[in-house]
């Protein structure tokens, strides 16, 4: 952590007054990083890259977008047809949203598998969840902007969730709408917030990285770096690795932008919003499907609490529970590599989230994967049950009972034994 010596006079002059260069040097150059990070550690910087892409493409979209219910749909069509490269900018923005969630979900599962939420990284983990929440709000409001059928009805269904709360529910929803239904006031405020929130996310990312650099990166062994041999400087080792990962990622991202731009989208959103007709099958964007499945799976009331309120509470709880897992997980071992039992439960959770996603996509009365007699709603209920049981039951109990495999004495030892390639 020695202070860098700047040879360039201008750089030195600036740095003596505002140490931006020193700060960058510390955080992106000499930052001591565990030497055994796998490609699972690429997704944080990828998510950051996508955030910048979203902000840049968004700013250019705004130059041609009109936030009015009479004109929004047409202005987006004009972006697609008439504005030079408008189609490219919009498709980057639309698919960028999906890429953002892909990166962040992989990033979160990485953290879950390697125990990155455990002490001393709780704050880091929390800020991450706040970023996820802010992303969800941003993506939801962005999806309303083109004012298609899914925009309108998705917004109707999601804002109506708040009507589930007793007494304050209805006034709250009317307040969110700025009227008695989703309309122009709603579109305008969503536009305003959709512009604002990404910058809030940016601020949260700064805090996230600050916390990271205070507690340092976790690694595949979950064993903290102890000696200088365990770490290597961020630059050039991880700058080059992150750049390489970015190259691969860009191929993936741009494949969708150029060859399958509507892959993640719903065709119904190319129909202008019609407040009088609900599309027969409303589905949220793919990244909300597991949560939507949890919401829908509660179709019964408990102790007089109506199903609607319970569903909403369960959906919010599915994220809130992530805040407390640093305390629910009782295992002393971070990395699931050394947790022979928990490892399997982790796999079940991973699959469970896909099952939830599938259930969120299908109509409640359909059969699950065509299995006669097994309704999507029932499967959704089972999957919801496991989701909560995983955090509230499995994590505390398995952590206590399981006998972990012996941990390597240090990162270096594990690398020499070839133990990092898992």
């Amino acid at each position, binding site marked *: 952590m020695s202070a860098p010596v700047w040879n360039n006079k201008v750089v030195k002059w600036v740095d003596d007054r505002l140490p931006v260069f020193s700060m960058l040097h510390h955080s992106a150059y000499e930052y001591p990083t565990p030497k055994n990070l796998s490609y699972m550690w690429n997704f944080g910087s990828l998510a950051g890259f996508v955030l910048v892409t979203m902000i840049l493409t968004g700013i250019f979209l705004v130059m041609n977008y009109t936030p009015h219910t009479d004109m929004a749909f047409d202005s987006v069509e004009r972006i697609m047809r008439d504005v030079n490269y408008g189609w490219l900018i919009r498709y980057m923005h639309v698919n960028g949203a999906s890429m953002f969630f892909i990166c962040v979900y992989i990033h979160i599962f990485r953290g879950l598998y390697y125990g990155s939420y455990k002490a001393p990284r709780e704050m880091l983990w929390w800020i991450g969840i706040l970023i996820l929440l802010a992303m969800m709000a941003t993506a939801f409001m962005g999806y309303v902007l083109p004012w298609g059928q899914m925009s309108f*009805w998705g917004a*109707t*269904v*999601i*804002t*109506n*969730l708040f*009507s589930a709360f007793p007494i304050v529910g209805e006034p709250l929803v*009317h*307040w*969110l*709408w*700025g*009227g*008695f*239904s*989703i*309309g122009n*006031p709603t579109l305008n*405020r969503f536009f305003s917030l959709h512009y604002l929130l990404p910058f809030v996310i940016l601020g949260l990312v700064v805090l996230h990285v600050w916390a990271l650099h205070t507690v340092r990166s976790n690694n595949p062994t979950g064993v903290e770096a102890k000696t200088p041999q365990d770490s290597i400087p961020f630059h050039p080792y991880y700058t080059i690795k992150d750049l390489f990962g970015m190259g691969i990622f860009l191929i993936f991202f741009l494949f969708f932008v150029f060859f399958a731009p509507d892959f993640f989208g719903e065709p119904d959103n190319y129909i202008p919003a019609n*407040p*009088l*007709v*609900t599309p*027969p*099958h*409303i589905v949220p964007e793919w990244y909300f499907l597991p949560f939507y499945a949890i919401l*829908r799976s509660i*179709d019964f009331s408990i102790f007089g609490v*109506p*199903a*609607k309120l319970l*569903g909403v509470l369960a959906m919010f709880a599915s994220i809130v529970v992530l805040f407390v897992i640093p305390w629910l997980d009782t295992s002393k071992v971070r990395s699931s590599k050394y947790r022979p039992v928990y490892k399997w439960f982790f796999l079940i959770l991973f699959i469970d989230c896909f099952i939830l996603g599938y259930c969120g996509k299908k*109509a*409640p*009365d359909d059969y699950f994967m065509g299995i006669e007699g097994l309704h999507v709603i029932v499967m959704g209920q089972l999957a919801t049950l496991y989701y909560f049981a995983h955090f509230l039951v499995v994590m505390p109990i398995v952590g206590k009972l399981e006998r972990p495999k012996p941990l390597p004495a240090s990162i270096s030892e594990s690398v020499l034994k070839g133990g990092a390639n898992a």
Partner: protein
Amino acid sequence: MSQTVQSSGDHAPDENRRDFLILATTAVGVVGTGMALWPFVDSMNASKDVLALASVEVSLSNIPVGQAIKVMWRGKPVFIRHRTEREIKEADDVALNELVDPQTDDARVEKKEWLILVGVCTHLGCIPMGTATGETRGDYDGWYCPCHGSHYDTSGRIRKGPAPLNLEVPTYSFLTDTSVKIG
């Protein structure tokens, strides 16, 4: 507070005064901040032009028995169904204890043949199907909400599915036998 007073003996009156000043300043600060925030919060509530949305008058003369129409009111659809004898009987014959949100049919209509409802599912706000002829009307012959599967009966009462309440009845009055004012 009392501890501070005791431990610092002769400074007591001064400290009391300081505590009071801090409390009072904080209170004024909190109330002041609240008052400064309120205009921003309230600016997001329905504006006067939205509130002033006039009521609508609907002529009923061209709705044959057994059919229904949709009209817009406050940005939402209102269903007006000209009920058949059978539909009225179905609505009357239900025992109240079978209902999720118990209400007699008489409490929900002014004239038995005209059922007037806000066409917004009380679950999460979709528009139930069943108004246009040929659309599915669900298991109870009224409306069916495709979003999460709520079934409403011939009085617009919730019978099955996640919706908690009956379809809302708007305020309306008959101007003549064949014309109604909603709102």
